[in-house]
């Protein structure tokens, strides 16, 4: 019975994935007359390579640290170590990711691929914010609509609506909402503050772009998880609630000792699903920001597509996919372990 399903999953999921693992160890290109060659782990080194460069402040002839008027020490340019400096071959071609000052020494963390590192960090921020926020909001909405009121289905439909609309359409609409000139959000904030609020280019500034995408993404998918919570709520036997009310439990006690334990399995499901979906963040980025401004919205999947397809570097894109797979798998396993039934 499972034959066709296994065949299709094998053909469209397992085989391409095995291909990706294989290709990540080659120099495969999308368009090329050159033969494919095995290159070992160099794609992984290229993406994940990190190094530490201690920068000593510049000193004058007397050995005194050169300082400007504000007293800040002057450091040599990182560029002088990372570009064709025969004394430091290990730093060649790397770029500054970030730096930390300890005493007078500036510890510079160099990355071979700063853009990918930024994408990793952005994706993690996205997951860490979206998973609790979306899960919590969805639960709140589910509790609200899990009531026997006339017309409650209308509310259920309204909350669920954004899920049905294509994410590309939603992203396009939110681009107008976030517009810096006459966007809905700016106009709303202006009228609420009687014009005191200055126009903000929500998607055009590194400080606000990722936040704007997080808000929009939470709004878009919250309805989906609301429905899952709702189905969980409805599996809880009404007799438990009756018993609780006879015992005189407060609303909070009912939630804490009846509802929440009853939602245990649902909670695990919602958490795992949101985490996996959040790691796959792509469409919003592709439509709204293309990873900019200044890499503030780069994500892992966007980079995989950008490289594999846009820059015709199939091997680079495959490598990113494999890294993502390992990340998501290990995080899901950790989540499973943390939420396991304790006996």
């Amino acid at each position, binding site marked *: 019975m499972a034959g066709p399903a296994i065949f299709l999953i094998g053909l469209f999921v397992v085989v391409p994935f095995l291909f990706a693992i294989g290709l990540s160890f080659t120099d495969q290109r999308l368009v090329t*007359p050159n033969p494919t060659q095995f290159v070992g782990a160099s794609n992984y080194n290229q993406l994940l390579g990190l190094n530490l460069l201690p920068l000593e402040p510049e000193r004058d002839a007397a050995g005194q640290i050169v300082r400007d008027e504000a007293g800040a020490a002057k450091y040599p340019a990182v*560029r002088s170590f*990372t570009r064709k400096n025969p004394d430091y071959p290990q730093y060649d071609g790397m770029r500054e990711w970030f730096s930390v000052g300890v005493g007078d020494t500036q510890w510079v963390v160099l990355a071979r691929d700063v853009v990918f590192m930024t994408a990793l960090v952005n994706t993690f921020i996205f997951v860490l914010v979206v998973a609790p926020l979306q899960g919590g909001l969805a639960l709140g909405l589910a509790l609200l609509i899990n009531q026997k009121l006339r017309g409650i289905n209308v509310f259920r439909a309204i909350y669920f609506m954004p899920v049905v609309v294509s994410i590309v359409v939603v992203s396009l609409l939110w681009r107008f909402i976030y517009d810096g000139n006459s966007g809905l959000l700016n106009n709303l904030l202006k009228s609420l503050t009687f014009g005191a609020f200055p126009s903000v280019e929500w998607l055009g500034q590194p400080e606000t772009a990722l936040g704007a995408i997080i808000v929009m993404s939470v709004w878009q998918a919250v309805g989906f998880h609301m429905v899952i919570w709702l189905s969980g709520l409805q599996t809880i036997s009404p007799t438990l609630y009756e018993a609780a009310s006879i015992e005189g439990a407060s609303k909070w006690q009912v939630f804490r000792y009846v509802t929440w334990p009853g939602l245990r399995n649902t909670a695990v499901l919602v958490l795992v699903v949101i985490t996996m979906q959040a790691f796959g963040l792509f469409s919003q980025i592709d439509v709204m920001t293309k990873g900019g401004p200044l890499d503030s919205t780069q994500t892992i999947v966007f980079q995989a597509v950008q490289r594999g397809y846009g*820059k015709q*570097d199939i091997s680079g894109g495959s490598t990113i996919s494999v890294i993502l797979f390992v990340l998501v798998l290990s995080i899901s396993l950790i989540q499973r372990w943390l939420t396991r039934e304790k006996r």
Partner: protein
Amino acid sequence: MKRRSLLLGATLASMLLSTSAFAATTLSMWYHGAGSDVEGKLINQVIDDFNASQSDWKVELQSFPQAVYNDSVTAAALAGNLPDILDVDGPNMPNWAWAGYMQPLKIDESKIANFLPGTKGVWNGQLYSIGLWDAAISLVTRKSYLDELGLRVPTLDQPWTAAEFADALAKAKASGKFKYALDLGTAWTGEWYPYAFSPFLQSFGGDIVDRSTYKTAEGALNGEAGIAWGKWWQSLFTDGYAQATQDPADRDNGFNTGAYAFSWNGNWAALGTLKAFEDTLFLPAPDFGNGPKIGAASWQFGVSAKSAHPEGAAAFIEFALQDKYLAAFSNGIGLIPATPSAADLVDNYKPGGPLHVFFDYSNKTGLVRPVTPGYVVQAKVFEKAAADIAQGADVEETLDAAVDEINADIEKNSGYGH
């Protein structure tokens, strides 16, 4: 498979209709203009005329939306399903030729002797593609603005220098009449960045890649000239002359509603601007030291490598190169006709016509984008670097990173055959 069934269909049809004893050989052709009625009519007219003009070949057209055209060709090439006649964007041609999607185009050289330089797709010393039109960019402004700001009208012989351009922007900003002095079109992401902005870099004396070898970008993109360009480019935004993040609506009608004093825009938008302001001027690019430069090369026709009938495909392309078709495309969609004699047939582009300057700009200041298979990647790297610098990233570091990425890509492709 598809061709065979087409052939079979054609044979059957001819047998049923019992027309000529030998059916014409069918040539398939792909074009990027699906969705545009005018463009569809124009290309179909050429095909109908060609099919009627002789009995050996029959061209059949398949149109794709521009946004997915390149993807379709790549997919078809991987699947071994390319058509006979291909339509290719000029800067992409070397990539497709190198990858073995295209073969050299064998047409009579004398037929294209007077074509604009940007319309000829030459790679490795051979002609691969030819365009019926070119596109050009100018610095759009109004005579009244220049008079008001006390600026001279630059000409092709005496374009604005870097200092004069800076002065013009400063005066426009100081006048307080405009939202921003300069509309660069930063809202148009994608190929617009290398097409429109890399000529500034080339006028500074830098380039996306070292064209003498095409093996490195070191020194070309991050050399003195490149860094000078980067600092100037960044200053446009930090000095408040232009927007690093632009609303697409501002790009589309900002200049026409008086929001900008100058607009860096193509000939395709020129008629709309002329309609908005009668005293519109289309000025040549400023000269930053190495002459005024604008991007050249638009969509062109070529023959796919897998075509079994390259002579038929070439015959069609040669047929399409007639002045009347060049003029028809120009009249229909506003592009620059490829020859002076065709320009004479088009009211907008004939000498004295309102857009004639574009023909001269294309002819005298047009510079094709780097002619290398690696351009498709280099264009994306350049776009990101230009966008990042506009957003305030460190110029030298950004250009160094771009150079590293371009060089790594060239190396990964064993030098792209150069």
